[in-house]
């Protein structure tokens, strides 16, 4: 019984982080058709910026995380405006350029901060026992923050003019432009939201996992898996798939072998791509 509880609790925490990473990834793909291989870089920068703001500039942790995420969001907009705008329609160009940027960012971080792992402190110290399962307050806070952020994202997308415009652009870019939507603005704001979400995830995870210049790899691979399993372009699907992956990985780690946790996502990805490329809730992609 306790095992099941543990799997559900720790899988949910994992799923929250995956959901934060993957919603941004899928948002920018659905809206602008950009498969952003620098998405993991936003996650990494979120962690490192928070570290700098907190330790070097002495800003308290919660505003430091928010500020870091806003900065990373602005960087995302810059990336989109400067590098991706001229060739947005070419998948080839976008893929190769974003992966090259990810490598360049890794080198910059390596030179600035060095290769040793670093951590920031928990948002809240201490832990609590949930029915016998010991969970730290920070981990519970991750769940709460994810819930708030995702609900806000949902509200923005369904209840505001920006959200409706975003939906319109993701359905038909030309049609949206015809009815007077400024697609460039929508692309920019989506890129901001996408980078913001990834940065929040990076900042929240760095008290638990050390930050290193290579940390952008893992979230990128997980984002792929979540997005493919959930269906490319479907936000709801991504969130469902994120939790599914979180639970499945925790289950594998606890029940079968911790060595296999990293393989689970790859196997899931391959199976879905080969047998059901449109994912759980996805539509067919052109």
């Amino acid at each position, binding site marked *: 019984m306790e095992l099941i509880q543990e799997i559900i609790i720790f899988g949910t925490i994992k799923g929250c982080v995956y959901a934060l990473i993957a919603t941004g990834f899928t948002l920018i793909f659905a809206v602008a058709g950009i498969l952003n291989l620098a998405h993991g870089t936003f996650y990494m920068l979120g962690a490192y910026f928070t570290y700098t703001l907190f330790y070097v500039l002495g800003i308290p942790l919660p505003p430091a995380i928010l500020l870091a995420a806003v900065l990373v969001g602005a960087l995302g907009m810059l990336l989109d405006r400067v590098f991706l705008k001229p060739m947005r329609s070419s998948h080839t160009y976008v893929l190769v350029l974003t992966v090259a940027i990810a490598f360049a960012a890794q080198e910059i971080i390596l030179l600035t901060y060095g290769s040793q792992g670093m951590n920031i402190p928990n948002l809240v110290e201490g832990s609590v026992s949930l029915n016998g399962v010991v969970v730290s307050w920070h981990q519970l806070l991750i769940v709460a923050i994810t819930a708030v952020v995702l609900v806000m994202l949902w509200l923005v997308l369904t209840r505001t003019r920006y959200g409706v415009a975003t939906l319109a652009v993701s359905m038909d870019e030309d049609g949206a432009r015809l009815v007077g939507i400024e697609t460039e603005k929508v692309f920019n704001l989506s890129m901001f939201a996408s980078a913001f979400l990834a940065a929040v995830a990076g900042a929240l995870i760095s008290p638990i996992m050390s930050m290193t210049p290579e940390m952008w790899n893992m979230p990128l691979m997980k984002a792929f898996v979540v997005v*493919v399993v959930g269906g490319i372009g479907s936000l709801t699907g991504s969130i469902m798939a994120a939790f599914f992956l979180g639970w499945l990985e925790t289950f594998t780690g606890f029940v079968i072998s911790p060595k296999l946790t990293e393989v689970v996502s*790859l196997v899931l*990805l391959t199976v879905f791509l080969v047998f059901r490329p449109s994912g759980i809730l996805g539509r067919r*992609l052109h």
Partner: protein
Amino acid sequence: MLANLKTPAQRRTAIFYGLIMLGFYFVPVFSDNFYLLSVFTTAYFYIIFATSWDVFAGYSHLMNFGHALFIGLAGYLTAFVDLHLGLPPLLVLPMCAVLCGLLGMFIGYLTLRMQGPYFAIITMAFAAVAYESAIMFSEYTGGEEGIPGIHPLTDSLIGDYYFVLVIMSLIFLFLLWFTRGRWGLVLKAISQNEDSVLASGINTAWVKIRAYSISGALCGIGGSVYAYSLTHVGPTSMEQVLSTTILIMAMVGGMGTITGPFLGALILVLFNELSRDMEEYRLLIYTVMVVVIIFFAPRGIVSWGQPIARAFKLGGKRGQAGS
């Protein structure tokens, strides 16, 4: 290929690459410096990997993010055959080519329906699965350490150098012949508009599968020679970084030209070695340079050939450098 040397620009291109190739054969005459020869050998490996990547991905614009899968697979096969059966390299190379070709055919068949980003993700996933299994099944693959002690190709460094160079030249010539003919044309047409190629009675699926299979087979030969040359194979030979490096080299040189990836691989490997003095800034400069080149010349450095030739008043205006 000779039929393609009609215009002055094409003849000029042929002379240009012919001279580079000839130069390669004379490097050991001038110097038998161990470091110099091994740098060039590394460049030849990357040329094999990048040009074999290009024959499928560059021409069809289906981004292959897992090309290193073939390198690793061929490397492990080479290690098994060499250490357990003791066959000579000239038998092992065709075996690797056949195995990787079949694997390419199989993956090509599975991924046939996929377009653009899907294809990129699945090739990445296959390579990652192979990488993880190489680490997991450590009783057969030696885990992270890999398998050491593969017999070297020849007794001397110069022998190795020429062996790799000859393999590279043969692959390069074959790819030029293959892509400058009907198949290259069909593949290019598919990347432009698959439906109209289908409508003209060509089985596009089969063309793509075959190109992917050839791409895998040639890379398998390269991977096998690579393992012989290092006398070692490990999971790093299937790493994501290696796959990405290969495709970045091809993109920097110019996708879908064969000559582009040739130049891209050569220039980037030489640059990487020449800039060793810059110590920790080396990789930063390297990666930033790659971003800048891709940003300013999405069609690669071969697209600069024509303006340069024009500046030096070589040949006619309609010349097409790099083709």
